[in-house]
């Protein structure tokens, strides 16, 4: 077999290989990116019961930006709807923990009940306040189903502060910050329910 032909075949093979990979990459890039976005939003939205929304909440931000509340700041919010009816609101809230900023995603249903809280960002002490980032999180599940009126305002605190919630062991400041941020978000929702979901609650 002569050498020149071998080399020519190899060069052709390399060209074909690069070409084929490039074409396949181009053809599939858009599909893969869409699917990646879907996976990302699903991990962010798994606090909402599946089937309770049929829009893309992350592409429907609410008109609130860096709104300062008593103990926290609302960064953004998203609206989950089903069949055009608002079903839940997701509020992205920032507060100051023990070591730095804690960012929470707080899901509230249309009746003002808390659906779930998820930690998006935190720099608390690993093993103490840092357990805030675990998911699923038993401590954050304490708040599921609570609302602004249930418990009343003075109940929204740690037992140490005469409230009704346990704290994460060894992380009083973190726990306090999180409780206050959740309470803030619920209060904000309660006061702006009309504007956020556009309906009076049917309770």
């Amino acid at each position, binding site marked *: 077999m002569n050498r020149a*032909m071998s080399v020519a075949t190899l060069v052709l093979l390399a060209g074909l290989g690069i070409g084929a990979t490039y074409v396949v990459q181009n053809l599939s890039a858009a599909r893969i990116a869409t699917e990646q976005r879907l996976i990302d939003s699903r991990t962010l939205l798994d606090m909402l019961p599946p089937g309770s929304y049929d829009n893309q909440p992350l592409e429907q931000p609410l008109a609130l930006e860096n709104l300062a509340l008593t103990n926290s700041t609302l960064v953004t919010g998203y609206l989950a709807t089903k069949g055009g009816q608002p079903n839940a609101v997701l509020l992205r809230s920032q507060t100051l923990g023990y070591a730095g900023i804690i960012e929470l995603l707080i899901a509230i249903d249309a009746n003002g009940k808390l659906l779930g809280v998820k930690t998006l960002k935190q720099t608390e002490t690993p093993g103490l306040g840092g357990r805030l980032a675990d998911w699923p999180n038993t401590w954050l599940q304490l708040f599921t189903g609570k609302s602004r009126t249930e418990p009343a305002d003075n109940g929204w605190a740690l037992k140490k502060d005469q409230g009704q919630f346990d704290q994460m062991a060894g992380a009083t400041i973190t726990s306090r910050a999180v409780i206050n941020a959740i309470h803030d978000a619920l209060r904000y929702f309660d006061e702006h329910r009309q504007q956020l979901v556009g309906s009076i609650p049917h309770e």
Partner: protein
Amino acid sequence: MNKASLQNSLMLAPLVGATGSLMSALGLWLMFVVVIGAYALGMGALRPRLASSTHWVAGVLLAATLTACVELAGQSWSLQWQQHLGLYAGLIALQCVVLDNNGFFQSPGRDRLRLCGLFGLLMVVLGLLREIIGNGTLGAHLTWLMGGADWPGWVLTVDGGLRLATLAPGGLILLGLLIAAKQAWHRPTPSN
């Protein structure tokens, strides 16, 4: 290290790494079969046109191309499935080249089928065992194959099972136990 043991140790990596669940094991094996099949066809066509000293270059080029294309196609089929395979999908290219170097593609068809089948059987059995023991589910995410909504599988135990089995050391232990069981099965009972 002799040739056969290099080939077998390359098979060990996906056997331990990609068998965390039935679906990842099945996915990797399917990719393996597709790439090996296409590689055999491609090299069959190329071999007569190349000087024997350049065979391995062609092999590397072909294996890399095929693996990259199959991986991309798999990602657009089901991204989550591919993400579970991780880097083990890329190792298939290396496996191809090593198998070629060992003369696997010149061996009779029956031997080739036997190796592929054995590898698949081991992958699927390990995947099944690790999923049942580690997660207490059977056939979770089976819908990745067909599309549609994600499916948690048949839940056998609610509390989740033994976590060790889902980690790499657990996989290695299980593989060892399987091989030991096979050895014990084939050993003639000692006569007293």
